[in-house]
């Protein structure tokens, strides 16, 4: 390769390196934000759980058990699988590992003679499913790097509605759980039917710490009455679980992109080193060539 060509290639690799480094830094900043938001959700979820416990004890145990979102359907004919992916790629295995886990799970479900209904968040997941001719019942896109409660509540409304109406008999969610900036793990959780334990927490904690006002049950006012407020509170947990998964997935997405961009930047420096070496070699070869020619010319004169 001539010196000039190598020089051009070095310049273009340097530019790529600059871009990937910038993307790495942007992802790192967004990661911190997403991580913080996932953490902020916890006190809200805990408070919601306390209120639900209070409403449940006021409404009586029967009311809670009778709520449709807690019911296991007698016959599970149709299983909804919600794949949580990203709108953008360039994040290593982030999207593909969710898709793979989703398709594997779908095969399992179908092997058991049940039907699969795909739901997906993120353009990557939606387009991959469509590419494989898997119909997507509902898709949600445009927010995966910064999901809000509005998005979660919209998805929750669709899923709870379809579940209670019997169009789907179980809802599973597959997402990238956030372990650390460098580590994401594929998690599969059952969203519906809701487990009563996830709503009111484990019984020991409930018994050990009676809620404020719980001891004066008769004195507490309820607007609307306890059974109605309980029926509104319990489905909120679907929304909260969803939001938590979306936020963890967003943090994981930024983490995965940060890692992917870091190794891209490292690769770029490695390529630059190799190319610089090649350029030096080419330059040296040219110099050697010229010296040889000068020496040969001088010898010819002698």
């Amino acid at each position, binding site marked *: 390769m001539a010196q000039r060509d190598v020089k051009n290639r070095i310049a273009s690799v340097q530019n790529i390196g600059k871009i990937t480094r910038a993307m790495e830094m942007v992802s790192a900043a967004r990661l911190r934000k997403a991580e913080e938001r996932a953490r902020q959700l916890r006190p809200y979820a805990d408070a919601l759980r306390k209120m639900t416990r209070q409403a449940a004890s006021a409404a009586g145990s029967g009311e809670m058990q009778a709520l449709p979102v807690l019911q296991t359907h007698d016959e599970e004919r149709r299983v909804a699988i919600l794949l949580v992916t990203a709108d953008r790629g360039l994040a290593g295995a982030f999207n593909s590992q969710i898709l793979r886990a989703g398709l594997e799970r779908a095969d399992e479900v179908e092997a058991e003679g049940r039907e699969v209904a795909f739901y997906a968040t993120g353009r990557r997941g939606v387009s991959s499913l469509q590419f494989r001719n898997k119909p997507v019942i509902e898709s949600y896109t445009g927010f995966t790097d910064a999901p809000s409660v509005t998005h979660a509540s919209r998805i929750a409304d669709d899923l709870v509605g379809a579940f209670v109406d019997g169009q789907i008999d179980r809802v599973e969610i597959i997402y990238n759980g956030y372990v650390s900036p460098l580590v994401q793990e594929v998690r599969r959780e059952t969203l519906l039917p809701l487990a009563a334990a996830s709503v009111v927490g484990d019984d020991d904690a409930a018994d050990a710490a009676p809620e404020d006002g719980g001891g004066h049950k008769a004195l507490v006012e309820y607007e*609307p009455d306890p059974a109605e407020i309980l029926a509104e509170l319990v489905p909120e947990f679907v929304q909260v679980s969803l939001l938590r998964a979306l936020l963890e997935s967003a943090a994981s997405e930024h983490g995965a992109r940060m890692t992917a961009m870091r190794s891209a930047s490292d690769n770029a420096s490695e390529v630059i080193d190799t190319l610089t070496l090649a350029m030096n070699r080419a330059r040296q070869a040219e110099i050697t060539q010229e010296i040889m020619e000068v020496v040969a010319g001088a010898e010819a004169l002698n």
Partner: protein
Amino acid sequence: MAHAPFRAEVLTPDGALFAGEVEQVSTRTVAGEIGILARHSPLLGRLEPAELKLTEPGGDVTRYVQTGGYVQIAADGNVLLLAEEAYPVDEYSKSDAQARLDDAEERLGRAEAGTEAHRIATIAHRRAKALVALGDRL
């Protein structure tokens, strides 16, 4: 006249919006407008889209918009507001609220009458409408 202070907390899924001493909390539950002073009797209520006013000791009033949620008054009179979304009143956007209402309308139109999906869409629609109407009263 100054009222006795009590503790109030406003929690959203995005974190604590307010935590501190207040003299009065005014908001709206499904049963209507409610003004909470110190030593209010215990309550658990469902919040409607409305203005949320916190009067701090000294008379400073902080105004928020809440889109829904729950309010709990504990036996000791402390107040906890769990708001699905809440933000300072000057961040309210009529066009956002209208976009939500359009979305809710479209979803309601798609849902089949008598189903749970329809019931959920009806509630979302009623709330979106209340949020739009709130814009004129701020």
